Protein backbone atom coordinates (compact mmCIF):
# COMPACT_ATOMS: atom_id res chain seq x y z
CA UNK A 1 0.00 0.00 0.00
CA UNK A 2 1.29 3.45 -0.82
CA UNK A 3 1.93 5.88 1.98
CA UNK A 4 -1.03 7.96 0.83
CA UNK A 5 -3.32 4.92 0.94
CA UNK A 6 -2.07 4.04 4.44
CA UNK A 7 -2.71 7.58 5.58
CA UNK A 8 -6.24 7.55 4.14
CA UNK A 9 -6.93 4.23 5.83
CA UNK A 10 -5.59 5.54 9.16
CA UNK A 11 -7.78 8.63 8.93
CA UNK A 12 -10.86 6.52 8.25
CA UNK A 13 -10.04 4.33 11.25
CA UNK A 14 -9.68 7.52 13.28
CA UNK A 15 -13.07 8.75 12.09
CA UNK A 16 -14.58 5.43 13.14
CA UNK A 17 -12.87 5.89 16.52
CA UNK A 18 -14.62 9.20 17.12
CA UNK A 19 -18.03 7.69 16.29
CA UNK A 20 -17.25 4.57 18.36
CA UNK A 21 -16.28 6.68 21.39
CA UNK A 22 -19.55 8.59 21.17
CA UNK A 23 -21.44 5.31 21.03
CA UNK A 24 -19.66 4.16 24.22
CA UNK A 25 -20.47 7.43 25.97
CA UNK A 26 -24.08 7.46 24.80
CA UNK A 27 -24.51 3.96 26.24
CA UNK A 28 -23.00 5.08 29.55
CA UNK A 29 -25.16 8.19 29.76
CA UNK A 30 -28.31 6.56 28.37
CA UNK A 31 -30.51 7.31 31.37
CA UNK A 32 -29.41 10.95 31.38
CA UNK A 33 -30.19 11.12 27.68
CA UNK A 34 -33.61 9.67 28.39
CA UNK A 35 -34.24 12.38 30.99
CA UNK A 36 -33.10 15.01 28.49
CA UNK A 37 -35.46 13.51 25.91
CA UNK A 38 -38.38 13.88 28.35
CA UNK A 39 -37.40 17.52 28.85
CA UNK A 40 -37.25 18.07 25.07
CA UNK A 41 -40.69 16.50 24.59
CA UNK A 42 -42.15 18.63 27.41
CA UNK A 43 -40.56 21.74 25.95
CA UNK A 44 -41.92 20.95 22.50
CA UNK A 45 -45.40 20.37 23.90
CA UNK A 46 -45.39 23.85 25.45
CA UNK A 47 -44.85 25.23 21.96
CA UNK A 48 -47.22 22.98 20.01
CA UNK A 49 -50.13 23.56 22.43
CA UNK A 50 -50.06 27.20 21.38
CA UNK A 51 -51.90 26.02 18.26
CA UNK A 52 -54.76 24.82 20.43
CA UNK A 53 -55.14 28.21 22.08
CA UNK A 54 -55.01 30.20 18.85
CA UNK A 55 -58.76 30.06 18.32
CA UNK A 56 -58.48 28.02 15.13
CA UNK A 57 -60.41 24.91 14.30
CA UNK A 58 -60.00 21.76 12.25
CA UNK A 59 -57.44 21.79 9.46
CA UNK A 60 -56.18 25.28 10.28
CA UNK A 61 -55.39 24.30 13.85
CA UNK A 62 -53.74 21.06 12.66
CA UNK A 63 -51.62 22.98 10.15
CA UNK A 64 -50.44 25.47 12.75
CA UNK A 65 -49.65 22.66 15.21
CA UNK A 66 -47.65 20.85 12.53
CA UNK A 67 -45.87 24.04 11.62
CA UNK A 68 -44.86 24.61 15.25
CA UNK A 69 -43.89 20.96 15.68
CA UNK A 70 -41.56 21.04 12.67
CA UNK A 71 -39.92 24.19 14.06
CA UNK A 72 -39.48 22.69 17.52
CA UNK A 73 -38.10 19.45 16.07
CA UNK A 74 -35.55 21.27 13.95
CA UNK A 75 -34.65 23.37 17.01
CA UNK A 76 -34.03 20.19 19.01
CA UNK A 77 -32.08 18.62 16.13
CA UNK A 78 -29.85 21.66 15.74
CA UNK A 79 -29.43 21.80 19.50
CA UNK A 80 -27.93 18.30 19.46
CA UNK A 81 -25.55 19.13 16.62
CA UNK A 82 -24.32 22.34 18.24
CA UNK A 83 -24.07 20.62 21.61
CA UNK A 84 -21.93 17.81 20.22
CA UNK A 85 -19.75 20.16 18.20
CA UNK A 86 -19.05 22.57 21.05
CA UNK A 87 -18.41 19.58 23.30
CA UNK A 88 -15.70 18.42 20.90
CA UNK A 89 -13.42 20.66 22.89
CA UNK A 90 -15.37 21.39 26.08
CA UNK A 91 -16.01 17.78 27.09
CA UNK A 92 -12.50 16.60 26.31
CA UNK A 93 -11.06 19.48 28.25
CA UNK A 94 -13.25 18.58 31.21
CA UNK A 95 -12.16 14.93 31.04
CA UNK A 96 -8.56 16.00 30.50
CA UNK A 97 -8.18 13.99 27.29
CA UNK A 98 -7.97 16.97 24.95
CA UNK A 99 -4.19 17.11 24.83
CA UNK A 100 -4.02 13.43 23.87
CA UNK A 101 -6.55 13.96 21.10
CA UNK A 102 -4.81 17.06 19.77
CA UNK A 103 -1.36 15.46 19.76
CA UNK A 104 -2.66 12.42 17.86
CA UNK A 105 -1.98 12.14 14.11
CA UNK A 106 -5.63 12.62 13.20
CA UNK A 107 -6.49 15.36 10.73
CA UNK A 108 -8.65 18.04 12.28
CA UNK A 109 -11.16 17.74 9.43
CA UNK A 110 -11.62 14.02 10.14
CA UNK A 111 -11.77 14.64 13.87
CA UNK A 112 -14.46 17.29 13.60
CA UNK A 113 -16.36 15.58 10.82
CA UNK A 114 -16.46 12.36 12.88
CA UNK A 115 -17.97 14.29 15.76
CA UNK A 116 -20.45 15.94 13.39
CA UNK A 117 -21.39 12.64 11.74
CA UNK A 118 -22.28 11.09 15.07
CA UNK A 119 -24.19 14.22 16.08
CA UNK A 120 -26.27 14.01 12.89
CA UNK A 121 -27.06 10.33 13.36
CA UNK A 122 -27.94 10.79 17.00
CA UNK A 123 -29.87 13.99 16.26
CA UNK A 124 -31.91 12.32 13.50
CA UNK A 125 -32.93 9.48 15.81
CA UNK A 126 -33.92 11.91 18.55
CA UNK A 127 -35.74 14.21 16.13
CA UNK A 128 -37.75 11.28 14.74
CA UNK A 129 -38.77 10.11 18.22
CA UNK A 130 -39.60 13.66 19.25
CA UNK A 131 -41.71 14.37 16.19
CA UNK A 132 -43.83 11.23 16.38
CA UNK A 133 -44.16 11.28 20.19
CA UNK A 134 -45.46 14.85 20.22
CA UNK A 135 -47.62 14.33 17.12
CA UNK A 136 -49.26 11.35 18.83
CA UNK A 137 -49.69 13.20 22.11
CA UNK A 138 -51.27 16.29 20.60
CA UNK A 139 -53.16 14.38 17.93
CA UNK A 140 -51.57 15.93 14.86
CA UNK A 141 -52.61 14.39 11.56
CA UNK A 142 -50.30 14.54 8.56
CA UNK A 143 -51.92 12.22 6.04
CA UNK A 144 -50.11 13.75 3.06
CA UNK A 145 -46.70 13.88 4.70
CA UNK A 146 -43.72 12.97 2.56
CA UNK A 147 -41.38 11.85 5.34
CA UNK A 148 -38.74 10.61 2.91
CA UNK A 149 -38.30 14.05 1.39
CA UNK A 150 -38.35 15.73 4.82
CA UNK A 151 -35.71 13.34 6.09
CA UNK A 152 -33.52 13.75 3.00
CA UNK A 153 -33.62 17.54 3.24
CA UNK A 154 -32.74 17.41 6.93
CA UNK A 155 -29.79 15.14 6.12
CA UNK A 156 -28.66 17.48 3.36
CA UNK A 157 -28.99 20.49 5.63
CA UNK A 158 -26.92 18.64 8.21
CA UNK A 159 -23.81 19.05 6.07
CA UNK A 160 -24.19 22.81 6.45
CA UNK A 161 -25.04 22.50 10.12
CA UNK A 162 -21.82 20.53 10.70
CA UNK A 163 -19.85 23.29 8.98
CA UNK A 164 -21.45 25.97 11.16
CA UNK A 165 -21.03 23.65 14.17
CA UNK A 166 -17.29 23.40 13.45
CA UNK A 167 -17.12 27.20 13.64
CA UNK A 168 -18.82 27.20 17.03
CA UNK A 169 -16.75 24.29 18.34
CA UNK A 170 -13.74 26.59 18.36
CA UNK A 171 -15.36 28.83 20.99
CA UNK A 172 -14.35 26.71 24.03
CA UNK A 173 -10.77 26.90 22.76
CA UNK A 174 -10.91 30.67 22.96
CA UNK A 175 -12.86 30.85 26.21
CA UNK A 176 -12.64 27.65 28.28
CA UNK A 177 -15.22 28.98 30.75
CA UNK A 178 -17.95 30.44 28.52
CA UNK A 179 -17.20 29.22 25.02
CA UNK A 180 -19.54 26.23 25.11
CA UNK A 181 -22.53 28.40 26.04
CA UNK A 182 -21.79 30.73 23.14
CA UNK A 183 -22.46 27.82 20.78
CA UNK A 184 -26.09 27.96 21.86
CA UNK A 185 -26.18 31.66 21.09
CA UNK A 186 -25.24 30.78 17.51
CA UNK A 187 -28.00 28.15 17.42
CA UNK A 188 -30.61 30.58 18.75
CA UNK A 189 -29.62 33.35 16.34
CA UNK A 190 -29.63 30.98 13.37
CA UNK A 191 -33.13 29.75 14.17
CA UNK A 192 -34.47 33.21 15.03
CA UNK A 193 -33.62 34.47 11.55
CA UNK A 194 -34.73 31.27 9.82
CA UNK A 195 -38.42 31.37 10.68
CA UNK A 196 -38.41 28.65 13.27
CA UNK A 197 -42.06 29.17 14.34
CA UNK A 198 -43.15 31.79 11.82
CA UNK A 199 -42.74 32.80 8.19
CA UNK A 200 -39.53 34.55 7.28
CA UNK A 201 -41.48 37.41 5.67
CA UNK A 202 -42.86 38.57 9.03
CA UNK A 203 -39.36 39.59 10.09
CA UNK A 204 -37.75 42.99 9.38
CA UNK A 205 -36.16 43.16 5.97
CA UNK A 206 -32.56 43.09 7.25
CA UNK A 207 -33.32 39.84 9.08
CA UNK A 208 -34.79 38.39 5.91
CA UNK A 209 -31.48 39.05 4.19
CA UNK A 210 -29.64 37.14 6.90
CA UNK A 211 -32.20 34.34 6.56
CA UNK A 212 -31.04 33.80 2.99
CA UNK A 213 -27.62 32.59 4.15
CA UNK A 214 -28.95 30.42 6.96
CA UNK A 215 -29.27 26.73 6.05
CA UNK A 216 -32.04 26.36 8.63
CA UNK A 217 -34.29 28.62 6.49
CA UNK A 218 -34.35 26.10 3.65
CA UNK A 219 -34.62 23.04 5.90
CA UNK A 220 -37.56 24.53 7.80
CA UNK A 221 -39.35 25.67 4.63
CA UNK A 222 -38.78 22.40 2.79
CA UNK A 223 -39.64 20.14 5.70
CA UNK A 224 -42.87 22.06 6.37
CA UNK A 225 -43.87 21.71 2.75
CA UNK A 226 -43.08 17.99 2.78
CA UNK A 227 -44.96 17.24 5.99
CA UNK A 228 -47.95 19.55 5.60
CA UNK A 229 -48.43 19.44 1.83
CA UNK A 230 -46.59 16.21 0.91
CA UNK A 231 -44.14 18.05 -1.33
CA UNK A 232 -41.02 16.32 -2.60
CA UNK A 233 -37.50 17.71 -2.54
CA UNK A 234 -37.63 21.18 -4.06
CA UNK A 235 -34.62 22.38 -6.04
CA UNK A 236 -35.22 25.86 -4.59
CA UNK A 237 -34.37 24.41 -1.16
CA UNK A 238 -31.69 21.97 -2.31
CA UNK A 239 -29.32 24.25 -4.22
CA UNK A 240 -28.83 26.84 -1.46
CA UNK A 241 -28.15 24.01 0.97
CA UNK A 242 -25.58 22.50 -1.38
CA UNK A 243 -23.78 25.83 -1.78
CA UNK A 244 -23.82 26.56 1.96
CA UNK A 245 -22.57 23.02 2.67
CA UNK A 246 -19.67 23.41 0.24
CA UNK A 247 -18.70 26.74 1.81
CA UNK A 248 -19.47 26.13 5.49
CA UNK A 249 -17.12 23.20 6.15
CA UNK A 250 -13.91 24.77 4.78
CA UNK A 251 -14.76 28.08 6.46
CA UNK A 252 -15.52 26.26 9.71
CA UNK A 253 -12.26 24.36 9.49
CA UNK A 254 -10.29 27.52 8.78
CA UNK A 255 -11.90 29.22 11.78
CA UNK A 256 -11.12 26.21 13.94
CA UNK A 257 -7.48 26.19 12.82
CA UNK A 258 -7.10 29.84 13.78
CA UNK A 259 -8.61 29.04 17.18
CA UNK A 260 -6.39 25.99 17.63
CA UNK A 261 -3.29 27.99 16.80
CA UNK A 262 -4.37 30.68 19.26
CA UNK A 263 -4.90 28.02 21.95
CA UNK A 264 -1.48 26.48 21.27
CA UNK A 265 0.22 29.85 21.42
CA UNK A 266 -1.40 30.74 24.72
CA UNK A 267 -1.56 27.26 26.26
CA UNK A 268 -5.34 27.10 26.34
CA UNK A 269 -5.61 23.46 25.35
CA UNK A 270 -4.83 22.45 28.87
CA UNK A 271 -7.70 21.38 31.12
CA UNK A 272 -9.07 24.15 33.25
CA UNK A 273 -10.86 22.28 36.00
Amino acid at each position, binding site marked *: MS*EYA*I*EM*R*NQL*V*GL*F*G*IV*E*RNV*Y*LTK*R*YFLWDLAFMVWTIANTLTIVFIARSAGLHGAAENTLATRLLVGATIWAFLGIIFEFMTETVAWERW*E*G*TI*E*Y*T*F*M*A*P*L*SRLVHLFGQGAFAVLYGLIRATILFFAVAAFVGIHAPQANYGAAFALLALGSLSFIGVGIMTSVLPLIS*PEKGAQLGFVAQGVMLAVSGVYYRVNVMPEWMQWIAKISPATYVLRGDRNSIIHGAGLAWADVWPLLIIAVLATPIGLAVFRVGE*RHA*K*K*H*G*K*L*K*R*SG
Partner: protein
Amino acid sequence: MSSVATPTTDLTTRLDRSAPAVEVRDLRKTFLRRDRNAGRFARKRPWPALDDITFTIDRGECVAILGQNGSGKSTLVRLLSTLLIGNGGEARIFGHDLDREASTIRRLVNRVSVEASFFKKMSAAENLSYAARFYGMTPRQTRTAVPEILASVGFPPERRGESMEHLSRGMQQKVALARALLTSPVLLLLDEPTTGLDPRSKLEVQEFIRAVRAEHDATILLCTHDMAEAETLADRVGILDRGRLLFLEPVEDVKRRFGVPTLEQAFFAATGREFENEGQDEDDEYREVFA
Protein backbone atom coordinates in the same frame (compact mmCIF):
# COMPACT_ATOMS: atom_id res chain seq x y z
CA MET B 1 6.68 -8.08 29.35
CA SER B 2 4.74 -9.13 26.31
CA SER B 3 5.12 -7.46 22.99
CA VAL B 4 3.67 -4.07 22.24
CA ALA B 5 1.31 -3.77 19.30
CA THR B 6 2.82 -3.57 15.86
CA PRO B 7 2.45 -0.08 14.40
CA THR B 8 0.07 0.13 11.47
CA THR B 9 2.19 2.71 9.70
CA ASP B 10 5.72 2.02 8.68
CA LEU B 11 7.44 4.39 11.07
CA THR B 12 10.82 3.60 9.61
CA THR B 13 9.91 5.64 6.55
CA ARG B 14 9.45 8.65 8.77
CA LEU B 15 12.71 8.27 10.70
CA ASP B 16 15.92 9.94 9.73
CA ARG B 17 18.32 7.40 11.24
CA SER B 18 21.27 9.74 11.08
CA ALA B 19 19.44 12.47 13.04
CA PRO B 20 19.31 12.64 16.84
CA ALA B 21 16.01 11.65 18.42
CA VAL B 22 15.54 15.16 19.78
CA GLU B 23 17.44 18.24 18.78
CA VAL B 24 16.46 21.48 20.48
CA ARG B 25 18.18 24.77 19.81
CA ASP B 26 17.48 28.07 21.61
CA LEU B 27 13.88 27.03 22.21
CA ARG B 28 11.85 29.74 23.85
CA LYS B 29 8.31 29.90 25.18
CA THR B 30 6.83 32.98 26.77
CA PHE B 31 3.42 33.32 28.35
CA LEU B 32 1.61 36.50 29.24
CA ARG B 33 1.08 36.80 32.93
CA ARG B 34 -0.69 39.35 35.07
CA ASP B 35 1.15 40.32 38.24
CA ARG B 36 -0.94 39.11 41.19
CA ASN B 37 -0.22 42.18 43.25
CA ALA B 38 -0.77 44.72 40.51
CA GLY B 39 -4.57 44.50 40.49
CA ARG B 40 -7.15 43.07 38.14
CA PHE B 41 -6.68 45.63 35.39
CA ALA B 42 -2.90 45.56 35.33
CA ARG B 43 -1.35 44.76 31.96
CA LYS B 44 -0.12 41.24 31.37
CA ARG B 45 3.61 40.94 31.02
CA PRO B 46 5.70 38.31 29.25
CA TRP B 47 6.85 35.52 31.52
CA PRO B 48 9.51 33.18 30.13
CA ALA B 49 8.51 29.58 30.74
CA LEU B 50 11.44 28.31 28.66
CA ASP B 51 14.43 30.52 28.05
CA ASP B 52 16.71 29.55 25.16
CA ILE B 53 16.87 25.85 25.85
CA THR B 54 19.43 23.87 23.87
CA PHE B 55 20.04 20.12 24.11
CA THR B 56 20.20 16.91 22.11
CA ILE B 57 18.95 13.41 22.91
CA ASP B 58 20.39 10.50 20.99
CA ARG B 59 18.29 7.69 19.70
CA GLY B 60 17.62 5.04 22.38
CA GLU B 61 18.79 7.33 25.16
CA CYS B 62 16.87 8.05 28.37
CA VAL B 63 17.27 11.60 29.60
CA ALA B 64 15.80 12.97 32.81
CA ILE B 65 14.99 16.61 33.37
CA LEU B 66 14.73 17.64 37.01
CA GLY B 67 13.16 20.84 38.15
CA GLN B 68 10.87 22.40 40.69
CA ASN B 69 7.23 23.01 39.97
CA GLY B 70 6.96 25.90 37.56
CA SER B 71 10.46 25.38 36.20
CA GLY B 72 9.19 24.70 32.67
CA LYS B 73 9.31 20.88 32.49
CA SER B 74 5.69 20.44 31.40
CA THR B 75 6.01 23.32 28.95
CA LEU B 76 8.97 21.53 27.35
CA VAL B 77 6.99 18.28 27.08
CA ARG B 78 3.99 20.11 25.61
CA LEU B 79 6.15 21.86 23.04
CA LEU B 80 7.70 18.56 21.94
CA SER B 81 4.20 17.02 21.81
CA THR B 82 3.06 19.75 19.38
CA LEU B 83 0.58 21.02 21.98
CA LEU B 84 2.23 24.42 22.28
CA ILE B 85 3.76 26.75 19.73
CA GLY B 86 7.08 28.22 20.77
CA ASN B 87 8.15 31.85 20.53
CA GLY B 88 11.59 31.20 19.14
CA GLY B 89 14.35 28.72 18.46
CA GLU B 90 13.79 25.36 16.82
CA ALA B 91 13.21 21.74 17.68
CA ARG B 92 13.54 18.64 15.54
CA ILE B 93 12.29 15.15 16.33
CA PHE B 94 14.14 12.47 14.35
CA GLY B 95 15.06 15.19 11.89
CA HIS B 96 11.51 16.51 11.49
CA ASP B 97 10.86 20.15 12.25
CA LEU B 98 8.40 20.64 15.09
CA ASP B 99 6.56 23.53 13.44
CA ARG B 100 6.51 22.46 9.82
CA GLU B 101 6.15 18.67 10.19
CA ALA B 102 3.90 18.40 13.21
CA SER B 103 1.68 15.71 11.68
CA THR B 104 4.67 13.44 11.00
CA ILE B 105 5.99 14.01 14.50
CA ARG B 106 2.64 13.08 16.01
CA ARG B 107 3.04 9.55 14.64
CA LEU B 108 6.42 9.21 16.34
CA VAL B 109 5.70 10.65 19.77
CA ASN B 110 3.48 9.76 22.68
CA ARG B 111 3.27 11.07 26.18
CA VAL B 112 2.37 10.17 29.74
CA SER B 113 1.54 13.09 32.00
CA VAL B 114 1.11 13.41 35.72
CA GLU B 115 -2.66 13.41 35.27
CA ALA B 116 -3.89 10.10 33.87
CA SER B 117 -6.56 11.74 31.72
CA PHE B 118 -9.32 9.47 30.44
CA PHE B 119 -13.02 9.39 29.72
CA LYS B 120 -13.99 8.43 33.25
CA LYS B 121 -17.19 6.59 32.33
CA MET B 122 -15.44 4.47 29.74
CA SER B 123 -13.45 1.37 30.64
CA ALA B 124 -9.70 0.95 30.34
CA ALA B 125 -10.16 -1.21 27.23
CA GLU B 126 -12.51 1.33 25.62
CA ASN B 127 -10.19 4.25 26.38
CA LEU B 128 -7.23 2.40 24.91
CA SER B 129 -9.17 1.38 21.82
CA TYR B 130 -10.28 4.98 21.32
CA ALA B 131 -6.70 6.26 21.57
CA ALA B 132 -5.43 3.50 19.26
CA ARG B 133 -7.92 4.38 16.49
CA PHE B 134 -6.22 7.76 16.07
CA TYR B 135 -3.06 5.89 15.19
CA GLY B 136 -4.83 3.68 12.64
CA MET B 137 -5.37 0.58 14.78
CA THR B 138 -8.53 -1.26 13.75
CA PRO B 139 -10.92 -3.09 16.13
CA ARG B 140 -9.39 -6.38 15.01
CA GLN B 141 -5.92 -5.16 16.00
CA THR B 142 -6.96 -3.70 19.35
CA ARG B 143 -8.89 -6.83 20.29
CA THR B 144 -5.56 -8.56 20.84
CA ALA B 145 -3.22 -5.60 21.41
CA VAL B 146 -5.20 -3.99 24.24
CA PRO B 147 -5.32 -7.07 26.52
CA GLU B 148 -1.64 -7.71 25.76
CA ILE B 149 -0.48 -4.22 26.62
CA LEU B 150 -2.66 -4.10 29.76
CA ALA B 151 -1.22 -7.42 30.89
CA SER B 152 2.29 -6.11 30.30
CA VAL B 153 1.74 -3.19 32.70
CA GLY B 154 0.31 -5.56 35.31
CA PHE B 155 -3.30 -4.48 34.91
CA PRO B 156 -5.71 -7.16 36.21
CA PRO B 157 -7.60 -8.66 33.23
CA GLU B 158 -10.89 -8.88 35.14
CA ARG B 159 -10.95 -5.07 35.53
CA ARG B 160 -10.52 -4.25 31.83
CA GLY B 161 -14.23 -3.53 31.42
CA GLU B 162 -14.56 -1.42 34.56
CA SER B 163 -15.10 2.35 34.33
CA MET B 164 -11.93 4.36 34.82
CA GLU B 165 -13.58 6.27 37.66
CA HIS B 166 -13.55 3.09 39.73
CA LEU B 167 -9.81 2.53 39.34
CA SER B 168 -7.15 3.73 41.77
CA ARG B 169 -4.68 6.42 40.77
CA GLY B 170 -1.96 3.81 40.37
CA MET B 171 -4.14 1.67 38.11
CA GLN B 172 -5.06 4.70 36.02
CA GLN B 173 -1.40 5.58 35.59
CA LYS B 174 -0.67 2.06 34.38
CA VAL B 175 -3.42 2.44 31.79
CA ALA B 176 -1.87 5.79 30.81
CA LEU B 177 1.46 4.05 30.23
CA ALA B 178 -0.30 1.34 28.25
CA ARG B 179 -2.01 4.02 26.12
CA ALA B 180 1.30 5.66 25.32
CA LEU B 181 2.99 2.38 24.40
CA LEU B 182 0.09 0.90 22.48
CA THR B 183 0.95 3.08 19.52
CA SER B 184 4.64 2.04 19.55
CA PRO B 185 6.10 5.55 19.82
CA VAL B 186 9.79 5.97 19.10
CA LEU B 187 9.92 8.96 21.43
CA LEU B 188 8.21 8.66 24.78
CA LEU B 189 7.69 11.83 26.80
CA LEU B 190 7.11 11.08 30.48
CA ASP B 191 5.98 14.06 32.52
CA GLU B 192 6.17 13.02 36.17
CA PRO B 193 4.69 9.59 35.49
CA THR B 194 5.07 8.36 39.07
CA THR B 195 4.05 11.48 40.99
CA GLY B 196 1.32 10.67 43.49
CA LEU B 197 1.72 6.92 43.21
CA ASP B 198 2.20 4.66 46.20
CA PRO B 199 5.71 3.15 46.53
CA ARG B 200 4.72 -0.20 45.05
CA SER B 201 2.97 1.32 42.01
CA LYS B 202 5.92 3.66 41.56
CA LEU B 203 8.34 0.76 41.43
CA GLU B 204 6.12 -1.14 39.01
CA VAL B 205 5.91 1.84 36.67
CA GLN B 206 9.67 2.37 36.86
CA GLU B 207 10.26 -1.30 36.13
CA PHE B 208 7.98 -1.01 33.13
CA ILE B 209 9.89 2.01 31.83
CA ARG B 210 13.11 0.01 32.11
CA ALA B 211 11.51 -2.87 30.22
CA VAL B 212 10.28 -0.55 27.46
CA ARG B 213 13.80 0.76 27.02
CA ALA B 214 15.30 -2.72 27.02
CA GLU B 215 12.84 -4.32 24.63
CA HIS B 216 11.87 -1.48 22.31
CA ASP B 217 13.74 1.00 20.28
CA ALA B 218 12.32 3.90 22.27
CA THR B 219 13.95 7.15 23.27
CA ILE B 220 12.70 8.52 26.58
CA LEU B 221 12.53 12.05 27.95
CA LEU B 222 11.60 11.82 31.61
CA CYS B 223 10.60 14.91 33.56
CA THR B 224 10.48 14.14 37.24
CA HIS B 225 10.74 15.39 40.80
CA ASP B 226 12.17 12.13 41.95
CA MET B 227 15.98 12.28 42.17
CA ALA B 228 16.30 8.54 42.75
CA GLU B 229 14.06 7.82 39.78
CA ALA B 230 16.15 10.07 37.56
CA GLU B 231 19.37 8.51 38.81
CA THR B 232 18.30 4.91 38.22
CA LEU B 233 16.48 5.36 34.91
CA ALA B 234 18.37 8.02 33.02
CA ASP B 235 21.63 8.05 31.08
CA ARG B 236 21.90 11.79 31.53
CA VAL B 237 20.29 14.23 33.91
CA GLY B 238 19.55 17.90 33.42
CA ILE B 239 18.28 20.58 35.74
CA LEU B 240 15.71 23.05 34.50
CA ASP B 241 15.56 26.12 36.69
CA ARG B 242 13.12 28.95 36.00
CA GLY B 243 13.02 28.05 32.32
CA ARG B 244 16.78 27.66 31.87
CA LEU B 245 18.51 24.32 31.36
CA LEU B 246 21.56 24.54 33.59
CA PHE B 247 23.27 21.39 32.27
CA LEU B 248 22.54 17.96 30.88
CA GLU B 249 25.11 15.27 31.61
CA PRO B 250 25.59 11.84 33.23
CA VAL B 251 24.77 11.72 36.95
CA GLU B 252 28.36 11.03 37.97
CA ASP B 253 29.55 14.05 35.98
CA VAL B 254 26.94 16.19 37.70
CA LYS B 255 28.13 15.09 41.13
CA ARG B 256 31.76 15.60 40.11
CA ARG B 257 31.00 19.05 38.69
CA PHE B 258 29.67 20.23 42.07
CA GLY B 259 31.87 18.00 44.22
CA VAL B 260 28.91 16.51 46.08
CA PRO B 261 27.90 12.89 46.79
CA THR B 262 24.17 13.16 45.90
CA LEU B 263 22.06 14.52 43.08
CA GLU B 264 19.98 16.44 45.59
CA GLN B 265 23.03 18.31 46.83
CA ALA B 266 24.00 18.97 43.24
CA PHE B 267 20.57 20.47 42.67
CA PHE B 268 21.05 22.75 45.66
CA ALA B 269 24.52 23.75 44.51
CA ALA B 270 23.26 24.47 40.99
CA THR B 271 20.14 26.44 41.89
CA GLY B 272 20.87 27.74 45.38
CA ARG B 273 17.60 26.28 46.62
CA GLU B 274 16.49 23.13 48.44
CA PHE B 275 14.67 20.75 46.13
CA GLU B 276 11.80 20.28 48.63
CA ASN B 277 11.35 24.04 48.85
CA GLU B 278 9.26 23.97 45.76
CA GLY B 279 7.73 26.99 44.19
CA GLN B 280 4.28 27.38 42.80
CA ASP B 281 2.86 24.42 40.98
CA GLU B 282 3.39 24.69 37.26
CA ASP B 283 -0.29 24.11 36.65
CA ASP B 284 -1.10 26.99 38.96
CA GLU B 285 1.24 29.11 36.90
CA TYR B 286 -0.84 28.23 33.86
CA ARG B 287 -4.07 29.16 35.57
CA GLU B 288 -2.59 32.49 36.52
CA VAL B 289 -1.50 33.04 32.97
CA PHE B 290 -4.87 32.21 31.51
CA ALA B 291 -7.02 33.85 34.14
